[in-house]
């Protein structure tokens, strides 16, 4: 590389500034939500990459979270209501399997049966709703199993508590007692798990995105690492961290909606 061009490059990217100046420049840009250009993909900025790919990850993530919550809570509640019965044991066997089978193995198994053998769903790609099903299921299974176990144990706790007895003593039937009295009190541990779960699903999707050939942010992140595309690595990492902070904040806000004992500000603390 001719020295003139190198000098020009250094000037353009600010590489001849001292390190701490470079660092503060980067921070300033990040604060304005500008992650700079990609070092490998010419003409694309990190923001472009995130904007382009995040919607896929978001869609896939939300679908998985929805599946995980819906089936996890259902399974946990049923297991708790029919404690120590066949239903309970079946639900917990499913949960243990869900936790122990890694999602990339499940993904391959799903692809083999539903796409290749039964020809019901597309193997890969991300063009229609049918395309989203297999990756979403593969991604949702482990968190679903976790949620089922969390829900079961906290539901068992709540069902043996005094206020459930009070509710039953009022003559309410089992369904009303479960919905109105038990569920809301039992769901707290699941809500706590929701914050880290959102991020785990959004970031953890890169294996699944690779397997199903989905152009999501996870796939871009993996690519940037193999390409040594430093600005993209930095950008996506900062983006994921911001996401984690936001989702944990949302979970904290959600607490106050569910449990009236948790309040912000000076009002709290009195009993």
């Amino acid at each position, binding site marked *: 590389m001719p020295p003139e061009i190198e000098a020009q490059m250094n000037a353009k990217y600010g590489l001849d500034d001292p390190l701490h100046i470079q660092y503060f420049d980067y921070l300033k840009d990040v604060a304005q939500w500008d992650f700079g250009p990609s070092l490998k993909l010419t003409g694309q900025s990190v923001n472009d990459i995130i904007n382009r790919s995040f919607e896929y990850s978001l869609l896939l993530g939300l679908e998985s979270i929805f599946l995980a919550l819906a089936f996890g809570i259902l399974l946990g509640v049923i297991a708790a209501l029919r404690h120590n019965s066949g239903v309970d044991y079946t639900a917990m066997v499913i949960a243990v399997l869900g936790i122990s089978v890694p999602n990339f193995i499940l993904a391959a198994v799903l692809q083999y049966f539903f796409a290749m053998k039964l020809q019901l769903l597309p193997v890969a790609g991300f063009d229609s709703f049918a395309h989203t099903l297999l990756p979403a299921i593969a991604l949702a299974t482990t968190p679903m199993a976790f949620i089922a176990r969390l829900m079961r144990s906290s539901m068992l706790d709540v069902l043996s*508590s*005094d*206020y459930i*007895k*009070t*509710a*039953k*003593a*009022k*003559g*309410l*039937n089992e369904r009303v007692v479960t919905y*109105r*009295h038990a569920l*809301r*009190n039992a769901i707290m541990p699941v809500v706590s798990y929701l914050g880290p779960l959102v991020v785990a699903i959004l970031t953890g999707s890169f294996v699944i995105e690779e397997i199903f050939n989905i152009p999501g942010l996870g796939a871009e992140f993996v690519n940037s690492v193999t390409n040594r595309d430093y600005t993209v690595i930095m950008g996506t990492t900062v983006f994921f961290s911001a996401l984690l902070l936001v989702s944990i904040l949302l979970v904290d806000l959600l607490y106050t909606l*569910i*449990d*009236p*004992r948790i309040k912000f500000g000076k009002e709290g603390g*009195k*009993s």
Partner: protein
Amino acid sequence: MKKVLEVKDLNVFFDTYKAEVQAVRGVSFDVHEKETLAIVGESGSGKSVTSQSIMKLIPMPPGKFAGGSIKFNGEELLDKSEKQMEDIRGKEISMIFQDPMTSLNPTMTVGKQIAESLIKHQNMSKSQARKRGLELLELVGIPNPDARIDQYPHEYSGGMRQRAMIAIALACNPKLLIADEPTTALDVTIQAQILDLMRDLQDKVNTSIILITHDLGVVANAAHRVAVMYGGKIVETGTVDEIFYNPTHPYTWGLLGSMPDLDRDGEEELQAIPGTPPDLSDPPKGCPFAARCPYAMKVCENHMPDYFELSDTQKSACWLLDERSPKVEPPESAKVGGSKRDEE
């Protein structure tokens, strides 16, 4: 007086991994209209199981009814389906639990918790139920009910929560109120208030009360009749006066003796009943109290005595009352503030 509740030869067992626990063994008692029956006994004597059996709130399995009968207003409760029981619970029979800190749902306003049974049993609309809820809170002595009704249980003090529980229990004017140690978790001044409140309300709404407690002070204060339970059986029953001034069962003597008395000489030590209650998964053949009874005879170990009728109201299951037994005087410690006859 009319009988509201008739319990006959009730047996309630629990299946556990180790063995079958015979928590309640042949308990019989009646509750009359507007009467307060106190069931006293130590932990594990079967008081709470008996009371929850009346509501059929025993989890089944592991619990099961092994015979007997519970008649409420002449109707057999043990034959009723779960659906029929739902119409009785909260409407005809209500219950107050021991710990007001945990017996209210923390995520629901007190008003809604009161309204629930009104909406269920009296077909009230939400606004009617709220109005009645305000009346009930007023009735149980909660100040400023307009503001309090929309508050959550954690914004109430312990005594207020128990008042709210009473409001819930009395919402539908039940014929029978079962209070399972309603004052145990409260401090003494609040205890007295809650007992006064229950007595007041009993006159106002004409309800009968089963008061479960291990506090004889509470019994003296609030009950008309007393049933003393031990080892899953009722060992002695009688009016309050009979139980306090003419107790005949050594376990009753022990209970009375272990009650602190301010008038008593300071030198005197508080009496305890030595030993521990029997293991109900392998209940003793004879009298359950025989192993701890200072007056136990040979016959006590192998044969459960029948009830000896001492008056129309007092019955006691103790071999000491048999004419063949030696005469035993109750110990000094079992005498309550001297004899009542002296005062009169």
